[in-house]
């Protein structure tokens, strides 16, 4: 597609699959990660061995430095806040103080001269806990007499969202048919390739500390740490260097980072902690541990009229900062209706505290679970009405825009039906059905599964404010400077860590300024260098930071044209910026953009006071949000003797508005699908009855490997978004959102001759075999 019309260099950069500017360093081993920095002191955390109890004593070996809550007097608790939904604020001490609430909770910090020595000392620290009964499962935590995890939240309910549309009851009562699904999503870990880690260094000259850490939100990390330590933000610099994946796990504040900054200040030195994989699996944030009961009321033509949902979201032992533990249950409540036209809705969404690792957002947040639930419901409804799964979706997908959902969300122009039809055609459903029948005759069970979904992306502060969040993210700021050398630096508040923003934002700027992306450096992840911003999460950065980038670049462009009009003595309307030059259209009068930049600093008198000195402009953007959409299709081969599922093929037809860089967009979708397949079939954090975690290594917690990921075929539709000034929609989470639903629907299609239904993720081979066995084994 062409983008930006005649603006820019004549050759547009937006829309082109140029190679990522960030990759040469990363693929030649020149990346800089937190753990690369050396420190004078190394920290290991002593973690609670008990799921619940009173902390009686912590005994450190003689001659060692072991920090406990008692040392941290004056350090406030991390207490995230919501002002709605009957939220019960609960605080978390950065090191457990008096009580422990999950296995893995940090109770002390050991400081030593090396990581090895610190780990040796950890082995010798004696933690004495009076254990009390614990509860790991959310439904068990809701039962009468269940152990109370926090006194502030009786019954273990930390928040409760309720909604019922005014016309719900009569529609429900008069429905032709009600279809129900009891969905279960087991607990998962985002499993970034690089676990968390921090390095805090004190500067004696200024008294400042620089915290380098593996985070998605450097500015908010600074704000939060300064809040709990009670120090000015000017005393702390936070740097997010290269970050090896975040997926949401690294947007929540770890208490460990607070301890590092406190230690650096106390020791007036440098301290570092590198989380290991076991810590990451037991004590970094988890996600997706939900029970959802969803019922759909249909009319006689299989048109969905009303949805009723009961959402029980296990939020772990504490509320994560800054999103709070509302992030899963409240998103599930707000977005449950998904891509379907349904105007009546009733929902109860509860966040339940348990003695387990705290929850945080993970790519897609609740949407992989609600999409899985809703798409199971649609497939069950299709069966109840003896319809094809594609047909029932055709009857119910939204096709008029803007559309206002039962929850009041406004859906912008999208292509729910078009992407479904595109996918159906590309996968050739009728050819598959023939192949499926032939395979069944030979005892092989193939299945096809569809998932259609909406992906709310790039939402600004009003959307977050609707949740009543005390910390309300949304906007972004970008500052673009053309320096006297004529090169461009864009300083952004977003904090990309794999999303390719250094490239895509450069493409946007290049088109505005008529220069090449190589001339543009995007600076991020340093609170001293970048403007305050929210970071990178929630499929927002290209929409919001990209929008702010466009606004700033347009201002620079306007100023360059004004300067050129002075120097070339032409009307501003006649100036074009192209190929690094400002040119008077239809003439050979030109001036290099680099020369204009120099003059903006060194020859300001030539502009007769008509411009301000320098060449720096700021853009802010806070959009309403825009909905991407896609149809995912999975073809699976289920081995009914072992329960093993092989995903044979995966196909996506998606619409994320204008695509700035197709290669990067497709990479995002591929990675998301890989995680979604892991969610569907493999990944599960398991607690035993005592609250101990049984999946603390990557031999037990199973992310997919390349071998488990099938060929992925992508098709695009580009519907420019009116809610996004670059016309781009977000797409970072879509892969994970649709894949579990498509895969599990395919598994159910494959197993339909057995009369079994799998409504649980991950659909492990054990669960699939148990279902077949319980159904009597007969196809």
């Amino acid at each position, binding site marked *: 597609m062409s983008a930006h019309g005649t603006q820019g260099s004549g050759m547009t950069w937006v829309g082109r699959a140029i190679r990522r500017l960030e990759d040469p360093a990363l693929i030649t081993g020149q990346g800089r990660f937190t753990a690369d920095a050396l420190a004078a002191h190394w920290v290991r955390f002593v973690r609670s061995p008990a799921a619940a109890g009173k902390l009686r004593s912590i005994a450190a070996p003689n001659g060692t430095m072991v920090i406990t809550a008692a040392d941290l007097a004056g350090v406030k608790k991390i207490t995230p806040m919501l002002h709605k939904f009957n939220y019960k604020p609960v605080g978390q001490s950065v090191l457990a103080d008096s009580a422990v609430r999950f296995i893995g909770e940090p109770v002390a910090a050991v400081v030593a001269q090396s990581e090895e020595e610190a780990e*040796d000392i950890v082995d010798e620290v004696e933690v004495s806990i009076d254990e009390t009964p614990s509860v790991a499962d959310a439904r068990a935590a809701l039962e009468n007499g269940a152990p109370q995890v926090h006194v502030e939240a009786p019954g273990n309910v930390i928040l409760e969202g309720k909604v019922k549309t005014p016309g719900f009851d009569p529609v429900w009562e008069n429905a032709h048919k009600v279809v129900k699904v009891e969905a279960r999503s087991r607990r998962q870990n985002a499993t970034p390739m690089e676990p968390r880690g921090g390095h805090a260094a004190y500067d004696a000259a200024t008294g400042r500390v620089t915290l380098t850490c593996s985070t998605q939100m450097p500015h908010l990390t600074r704000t939060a740490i300064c809040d709990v330590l009670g120090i000015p933000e000017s005393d702390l610099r936070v740097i997010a260097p290269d970050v090896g994946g975040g997926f949401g796990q690294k947007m929540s504040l770890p208490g460990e980072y607070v301890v590092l900054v406190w230690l650096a200040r106390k020791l007036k030195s440098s301290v570092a902690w590198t989380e290991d994989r076991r810590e990451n699996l037991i004590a970094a944030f988890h996600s997706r541990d939900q029970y959802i009961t969803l019922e759909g009321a249909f009319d006689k033509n299989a048109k969905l009229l009303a949805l009723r949902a009961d959402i029980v979201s296990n939020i772990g032992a504490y509320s994560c900062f800054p999103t709070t533990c509302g992030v899963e249950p409240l998103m599930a409540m707000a977005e449950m209706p998904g891509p379907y036209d349904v105007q009546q809705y009733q929902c109860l969404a509860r966040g339940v505290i348990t003695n387990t690792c705290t929850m945080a957002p993970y790519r897609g947040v609740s949407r992989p679970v609600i999409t899985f639930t809703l798409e199971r419901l649609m497939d069950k409804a299709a069966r109840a009405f003896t319809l094809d799964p594609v047909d029932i979706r055709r009857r119910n997908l939204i096709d008029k825009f803007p559309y206002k959902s039962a929850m009041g969300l406004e859906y912008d122009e999208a292509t729910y039906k078009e992407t479904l039809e595109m996918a159906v055609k590309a996968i050739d459903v009728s050819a598959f059905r023939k192949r499926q029948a032939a395979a069944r005759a030979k005892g092989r069970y193939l299945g096809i599964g569809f998932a259609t979904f909406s992906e709310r992306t790039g939402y600004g502060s009003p959307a977050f404010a609707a949740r009543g969040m005390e910390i309300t993210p949304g906007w972004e700021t970008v500052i673009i400077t053309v320096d006297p050398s004529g090169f461009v630096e864009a300083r952004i508040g977003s904090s990309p860590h794999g999303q390719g923003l250094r490239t895509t934002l450069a493409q946007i700027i290049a088109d505005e300024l008529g220069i090449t992306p190589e001339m543009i450096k995007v600076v991020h992840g340093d609170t001293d260098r970048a403007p305050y911003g929210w970071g990178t999460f929630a499929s927002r950065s290209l929409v919001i930071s990209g929008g702010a980038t466009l606004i700033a670049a347009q201002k620079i462009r306007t100023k360059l044209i004004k300067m050129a009009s002075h120097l070339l003595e032409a009307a501003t309307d006649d100036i074009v910026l192209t190929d690094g030059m400002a040119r008077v259209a239809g003439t050979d009068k030109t001036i290099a953009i680099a020369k204009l930049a120099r003059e903006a600093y060194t020859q300001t008198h030539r502009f007769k006071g008509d411009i301000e000195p320098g060449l720096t402009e700021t853009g802010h953007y806070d959009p309403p949000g825009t909905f991407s959409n896609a149809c995912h299709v999975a073809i699976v081969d289920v081995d009914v003797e072992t329960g093993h599922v092989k995903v044979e093929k995966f196909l996506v037809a998606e619409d994320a508005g204008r695509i700035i860089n197709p290669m990067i967009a497709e990479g995002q979708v591929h990675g998301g699908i890989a995680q979604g397949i892991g969610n569907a079939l493999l990944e599960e954090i398991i607690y035993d009855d005592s609250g101990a975690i049984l999946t603390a290594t990557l031999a037990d917690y199973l992310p997919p490997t390349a071998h488990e990921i099938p060929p992925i075929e992508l098709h695009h539709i580009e519907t420019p978004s009116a809610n996004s000034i670059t016309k781009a929609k977000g797409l970072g989470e879509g892969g994970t959102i649709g894949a579990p639903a498509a895969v599990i629907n395919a598994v159910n299609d494959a197993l339909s001759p057995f009369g079994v239904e799998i409504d649980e993720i991950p659909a492990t*081979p*054990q669960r699939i075999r*148990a279902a077949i*066995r319980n159904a009597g084994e007969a196809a």
Partner: protein
Amino acid sequence: MKPAPFIRHAPKTLDEALKILAKVAPQDGRVLAGGQSLVPIMAFRLAKPAHLVDINDVAGLDKISNDGKVLAIGACVRHAAFHKPVTENPLGTLLSTVARHIAHYPIRMRGTFCGSLAHADPASEWCLVAAALDATLIAKSTRGERAIAAKHFFTGIMSTALAEDELLVEARLPLLANDARFGFNEFSRRAGDFAMAASLVTYRLQGGKIADARVGLGGAEPSPRRIPEAEAALNGQAPGDKLFRTAAAAAAAAIDPLEDHQTTAEYRRDLVRAVVRRALEGSTS
């Protein structure tokens, strides 16, 4: 995930290695070969050996020899040595077939055949091979040398008949009959994961009937072993789908299955039925 402190010894000769082992074994000394199992266990501090006797520099332990009856595999022979058949005897193809199922390529470059046996993980492919083929394991110490039959060598989960001062210096696998058929199948959650069940079968055909059947099973019980009930079902019968199902069912019924938080006894039997039948099916092609 840093190991507890330990002292590494790096002997150059077998005698020296055995002397050091004799000395440090009572002080929690362990032998280090490829380290692909021991080192992760140490990183998790599930094992904290005070001494490691690293045998990688010991001359002569990386040899494979074949005297026409027995294939002898030295203590430092890596898994990757079997990627291509090491002998024209059917055993060579058998070993290369099995080797491809062991973990991942980098692990196969480093891990050793004898190290797997000494580690005795129930899911180990090489332990299954040793049990199914009735290997003889040669243990040496300063006290002398002894030969241990595979069926007496594996004594439980990660437990063997080796004394603490003994080094497994060689594994001896009998060559197969030239007309031997074999089949191997294993099930794991992901490619390269530990097998949740694995089966190795060998037999010959005499007048169209199965003879000398061996049905080895790994990953399903604390130690790999031959399953006589399945072998009895096969011997004297003509190969075929129905027979293979009968033998697989016999194996599934005969075992005392390992159970864990995800895997019930029933499911383990399901897998045993599947891998034994598939190993048998694979043997006919």
